[in-house]
């Protein structure tokens, strides 16, 4: 019994708790605790989600009418380029790294990441290259405007001839982003390989850890290729080399190989952790073990292997030879096999379960539906004769927004709701959460479904104006996008007000099985500190009655003093 106003271990905790006066400062400093870094990543990412979303609203405002009548064409091209760049490099990769920071050490029973200072460095690079990207908006020539792919020769045209141009700042930001991600990947992979709790063999790791390991392996293998291509492009732009310039004997398609060798695996970097989230949440919210753990774990690495040999499907029409098109068509279609293994596993998990339709589960179910829809259009895109027709049309834009917003972002929201109480010590408001889900599901389907008929009819992507026959579906899509924009409001309200004054959370509100749920909410600075549990069974023991760790009861009864 202590006379302090709160549990002394909470003094070291990294979330604000009632009575602790200056905990908020930790989030604005160079703090090496992975849980603080995780919140920092997530907060910065959500800020840039709003920026990227605002750009999208302006774009959809332009596209609600066929003519170019809202912004100048140069402005539209800058907007769509920066929308894609910000959403990928400033939102989705940082937010996934944020979840990794929160969840990896706690789920495997480690005190922190393998390299805590490098971890903080990797985070602090994010606002730096974010600033560089945003600063490019005020350059006289405007920001980069050749799409987030930045294909030469159009990206190296540099009409004003300035050394510091939107494009060169874009390349610098992307290169820094790559370095930050590689540092993060090193940390995540080393931590998973080396710092698991005693008794946690590889095949007792939660699936989220498997999928993150797979995703970060792809980062390590793929990012250097992107960096190499970006360096060569930068030299073409500022020094006058001819790697990709035909006049000097260079080859523009070579850049496409460099670019997509990374950027295809990048999409698996995005979706694999979301697969992990689905595996965790479907199991917990059906109170049933994950069906087929071994196949699901191995499928993650099958996706890594296959994901590295499909990149040419992004540029089938560029003139690559027929044998190459056929080869990459087959490899691309094969990815649906390990992915299908996971989808069937989730369906078999929830079948016959005891489902709770709370906010995390709703987001997972909606995300699963959107993902399956995106998957079948993916098969169509993999099929070369069909792709020749729909490549570079809105069909592709619809497909990838279904995966990214419809599946990945919804999965990320699900994770945030599911683990919110663990890392803030408070419960979110369930009603606002359900509202957020409803608006998101309807908005994303209204926004992105119409893009499919548009693409089939032949509307190209990246256009600032279009022929009148495309008007109807564009109007629907724009209205959907405005709804999607509004849908973020209940989420922001929920996050802020719950953190500040939400009800205190119990240690394990979902009664879920996992090492992170054996920690107090929020966990102390070094998680289990000296009392690292010994894992004695696999991760999804719902209904088996087997405890996860030795002396489990001791970990389950950690209460704080009431303030």
């Amino acid at each position, binding site marked *: 019994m202590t006379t302090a106003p709160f549990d002394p271990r909470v003094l070291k905790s990294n979330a604000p708790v009632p009575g602790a006066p200056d905990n908020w400062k930790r989030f604005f400093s160079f703090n090496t605790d992975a849980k603080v870094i995780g919140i920092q990543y997530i907060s910065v990412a959500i800020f840039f989600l709003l920026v990227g979303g605002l750009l999208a609203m302006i774009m959809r405002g332009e596209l609600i009418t066929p003519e170019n009548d809202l912004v100048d064409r140069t402005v539209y091209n*800058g907007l769509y380029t920066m929308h894609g760049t910000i959403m990928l490099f400033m939102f989705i990769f940082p937010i996934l790294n944020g979840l990794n920071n929160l969840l990896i050490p706690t789920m495997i029973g480690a005190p922190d990441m393998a390299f805590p200072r490098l971890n903080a460095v990797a985070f602090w690079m994010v606002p730096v290259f974010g600033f560089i990207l945003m600063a490019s908006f005020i350059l006289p020539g405007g920001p980069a405007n050749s799409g987030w792919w930045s294909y030469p020769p159009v990206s190296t045209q540099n009409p004003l001839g300035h050394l510091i141009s*939107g494009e060169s700042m874009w390349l610098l930001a992307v290169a820094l982003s790559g370095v930050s991600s590689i540092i993060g990947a090193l940390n995540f992979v080393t931590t998973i390989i080396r710092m698991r709790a005693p008794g946690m063999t590889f095949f007792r790791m939660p699936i989220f850890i498997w999928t993150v390991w797979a995703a970060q392996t792809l980062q390590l293998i793929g990012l250097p290729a992107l960096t190499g291509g970006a360096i060569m492009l930068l030299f073409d732009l500022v020094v006058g080399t001819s790697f990709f310039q035909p006049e000097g004997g260079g080859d*523009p398609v070579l850049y496409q190989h460099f670019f997509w060798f990374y950027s295809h695996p990048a999409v698996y970097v995005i979706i694999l952790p979301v697969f992990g989230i689905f595996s965790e949440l479907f199991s917990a919210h059906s109170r049933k073990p994950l069906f087929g753990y071994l196949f699901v774990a191995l499928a993650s690495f099958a996706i890594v292997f296959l994901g590295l040999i499909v990149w040419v499907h992004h540029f089938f029409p560029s003139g690559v030879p027929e044998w190459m098109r056929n080869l990459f068509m087959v490899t691309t279609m094969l990815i649906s096999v390990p992915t299908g293994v996971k989808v069937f596993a989730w369906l078999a998990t929830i079948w016959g379960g005891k489902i709770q339709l709370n906010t995390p589960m709703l987001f997972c179910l909606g995300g699963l539906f959107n993902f399956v829809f995106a998957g079948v259009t993916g098969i169509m895109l993999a099929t070369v004769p069909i792709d020749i027709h729909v490549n*570079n049309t809105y069909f592709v834009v619809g497909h990838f927004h279904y995966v990214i917003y419809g599946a990945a972002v919804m999965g990320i929201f699900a994770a945030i709701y599911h683990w919110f109480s663990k890392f803030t010590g408070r419960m979110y408001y369930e009603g606002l959460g359900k509202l957020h889900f409803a608006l998101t599901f309807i908005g994303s389907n209204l926004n992105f479904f119409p893009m499919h008929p548009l693409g089939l009819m032949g509307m190209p992507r990246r256009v600032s104006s279009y022929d009148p026959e495309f008007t109807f579906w564009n109007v629907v899509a724009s209205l959907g996008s405005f709804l999607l924009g509004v849908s973020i409001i209940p989420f922001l309200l929920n996050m802020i007000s719950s953190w500040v004054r939400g009800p205190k959370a119990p240690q394990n509100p979902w009664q879920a099985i996992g090492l992170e749920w054996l920690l107090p909410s929020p966990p102390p600075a070094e998680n289990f500190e000296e009392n690292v549990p010994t894992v004695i069974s696999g991760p999804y023991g719902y209904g088996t009655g087997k405890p996860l760790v030795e002396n489990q009861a001791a970990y389950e009864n950690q209460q704080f003093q009431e303030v």
Partner: protein
Amino acid sequence: MTSSPSRINFPAVAIVSAWTGVLVVISFWMSRQAYHWLPVQASTAAPLVDGLFSFETALATFVVCWVVSIITWVVLFNRADKYDMSDAEPIEGNTRLEIIWTVIPALIVFGIAFYAVRVNQQLAVLGPMEHIHRGSPVEEVGGYVGDRLPSETVEVIARQWSWEFRYPKANVSSTELHLPVDKPVTFRLVSEDVIHGFYVPAFRLKQDIIPGRAIDFNLTPTREGRYRLRDSMYSGTWFATNQADVVVESSDGFQHWLEQAASQPLQPGLSDAVQEYDQRQQAGAKGWATVRPAPRPQVNVPGSNTLPHEA
């Protein structure tokens, strides 16, 4: 490992089979609808592509409907009571089922791929492709290389932001593409600046045009009409306006057009970008930096890009 029970439940099998039958019917119906989502079929490639798309729509419908059915069933009949936190049956897997749902999709995928490779071979659109130098002394020796092309070739010159079509045999150029119906045509695609995309949705065909290369591209139009050619690879500020019309007409009509065109003097062709650029300059060039559009190509027949088109 606790496995799912393996007694055969006949009513369940009957219901599942019946529902599968319903979904097969729906999928077949969707596959017929799929043809309506695509533009008119105006080339020999179009029926092949549409057939493949229709087949994949059937498969897609079946998969999506099955997944939705399972999710719906679970949400309706497997709900726990609000405060019930008890566990469900600890079913951890069923190796035989997992093997089945790995192998069967793999076989289906190989089946689709085989079908698609066959269609690819039938399409066979991509001809030989050679690298060229722009402004190379070698080319200057023999004159502009377009003059040495086989006579049935149509040379397509893509620029920021206009399309020029040259018929070397007839010594005709235009910014409106005319083609005789039911005759195979070979295009020679070149770009003078950045990557463009030669895309005619009604033909279902697209080919990127890479600067520094001359790409041969073959197709056969099968339906008379006026269609759209759209630049499909982002090529800069006025990319969206870089469109031209494709007029497919009878052989006689086409010959007549060529003869008429040959007698016309050279005049500026179509380029919406040039017009917009001039207007933009006059209005004070508000906006960010842009490359200047290439001047309108000098052609015999400018043609039109504002007449109604079918696709």
